[in-house]
């Protein structure tokens, strides 16, 4: 993803906080979180080879598929749950977010903005689905299963009862402050579950 984004997301993590990283990959970012925020960190990753890379970094990591749920964790075990660059790959993102809000107080998501102007131009002028830095693979090779924009994500948040406490937008040059849905290639949001939402109820009703 975008290094500016990772640098900024680090500041959202409370010092000495408890952090769960969903789809942690080779653990490179999680290792930074542990080091730079003195955080207690743990990752979840599906690919055994990437789990091994995390073990080599001396991280605590759990091999598992996010879609199977997170029932190995008790509710409210973490201050922050990270879901970076993974949301668009999840067949059922709402189920994963429910579980993320059950085990964590806040959730950080990041995703690529499908309405970034380069993609829009490619679609308009070539008639092909966009292939960009943020969406590097052709449709039949990509691991993404959903394509959405910053506006779409805002609508999703409103629909399921998540509040975007903070939002940041980026393109290759750094932060984007104006007209993000056109100008930003990546977005990150710090999310809270609205009281009374299905997300909040899932946590309250959870027995463990």
């Amino acid at each position, binding site marked *: 993803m975008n290094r500016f984004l990772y640098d900024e997301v680090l500041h959202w993590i409370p010092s000495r906080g408890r952090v769960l990283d969903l789809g942690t990959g080779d653990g490179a970012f999680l290792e930074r979180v542990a080091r730079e925020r003195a955080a207690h960190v743990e990752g979840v990753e599906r690919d*055994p080879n990437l789990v091994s890379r995390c073990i080599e970094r*001396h991280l*605590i*990591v*759990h091999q598992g598929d996010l879609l199977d749920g997170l029932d*190995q*964790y*008790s509710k409210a075990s973490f201050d922050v749950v990270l879901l970076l660059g993974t949301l668009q790959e999840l067949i059922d993102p709402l189920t994963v977010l429910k579980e993320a809000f059950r085990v964590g107080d806040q959730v950080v998501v990041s995703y690529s903005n499908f309405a970034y102007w380069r993609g829009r131009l490619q679609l308009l002028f070539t008639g092909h689905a966009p292939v960009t830095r943020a969406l590097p693979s052709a449709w039949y090779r990509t691991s993404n299963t959903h394509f959405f924009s910053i506006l779409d994500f805002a609508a999703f948040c409103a629909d399921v009862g998540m509040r975007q406490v903070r939002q940041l937008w980026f393109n290759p040059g750094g932060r984007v402050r104006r007209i993000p849905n056109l100008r930003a290639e990546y977005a990150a949001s710090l999310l809270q579950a609205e009281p009374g939402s299905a997300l909040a109820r899932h946590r309250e009703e959870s027995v463990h």
Partner: protein
Amino acid sequence: MTKAKPNLEGDLQDQAHHEYSSELGVTTVQVARLPGFRTQSGGDLPFIDIAYQTLGRLSPQRDNVVLVCHALSGDAHLAGINPSTGRPGWWDFHVGPGKAIDTDQFYVICSNVLGGCGGSTGPSSINPATGAPYATDFPPVTLREMVRAQAMLLDHLEIPRLLAVTGGSMGGMQALIWATDHPDRVDTCIPIACCLAHNAMQIAFNEVGRQAIMTDVNWREGRYYGRPLPRHGLAVARMVGHVTYLSDYAMHEKFGRRLQRPALPEDLFPDFFSVESYLQYQGESFVKRFDPNSYLYLTKALDRFDLLNQRPAREVFGPVQARFLVISFDSDWLYAPEQSRELVRLLKRANLPTTYLNLTTPYGHDSFLIRNQEFSRAINHFLTGEYRKLHGVGVRPAAERHP
């Protein structure tokens, strides 16, 4: 899935490895005689012998000890060449200089279980009260008692703490008992391909093995010492056990439907498949090194094991201090990954730092005995990382020293 052709697989003890050479060279097993032992069932043993092997060098701080617990058919001969059989130890692929458990860095101990037949006291040992083998007068021992006997051995060797305790299958269950029964002695625990308790299917396979032994006419209520052994029963028990350790893929790759030899006039049925021949060989070679009564005692101890034993997980794991690396194999249908995940769930909910790795291997339960680089690297990096965390100073991962 990596579908590499199986080369060396299965129990190293049962393979003829003419070309195999161990970096450790010839290694030996010693026996410690320990004072009296009373089992939970009320059995009194005036003394017990525990056979054990040590590899590597104990650090002056005694902080680099790795205890390896063996599985059902294993013994104290962990790695290196056994001088009496010429065969490598059962975990030679993973224990040695620059290997997963690096004997250049760690002091590695492996002991034969109480009730076994690899030099430790068991049903085939002489009962000092009668001068004859205990046979079925030997008290039924549990896995917890095997671990208690091991703890006595460590006291005898003046080893206060374990950097790690590990093992596969029955060895993994012992590792879990170590972490829960001796919480102040265990820094890290690496249970591999094991479970919290046997399920009905696992008990069922063991019972088939036990019945094969006990219905052999030579078993004679276990008092066969000095007479013909119930060798057919034990061989059949081993055959059924061995099948459960493999996978359909491994068996298909190795044997397919190949025939072992052309038909002979005396054959009852025309086609003698390679897999039949292989199992018969496995059965026969096992008979040469394993006591049938020990097989009964150990499988029953396995079936009776229940880590929680009706107690709440909070109570069982409450005192535990160890950090965990739990490993399972996706093709293992005997100790299925779901059983390891259940263990992981309980450990994590008890707030114990737990890493879980489910490796993709095609070889079934036996995967932990087979050469596997990912498996080796995971254990090696976990151990070196934990040593660094605990003691501040580093031991280097084997890969960096043996590129």
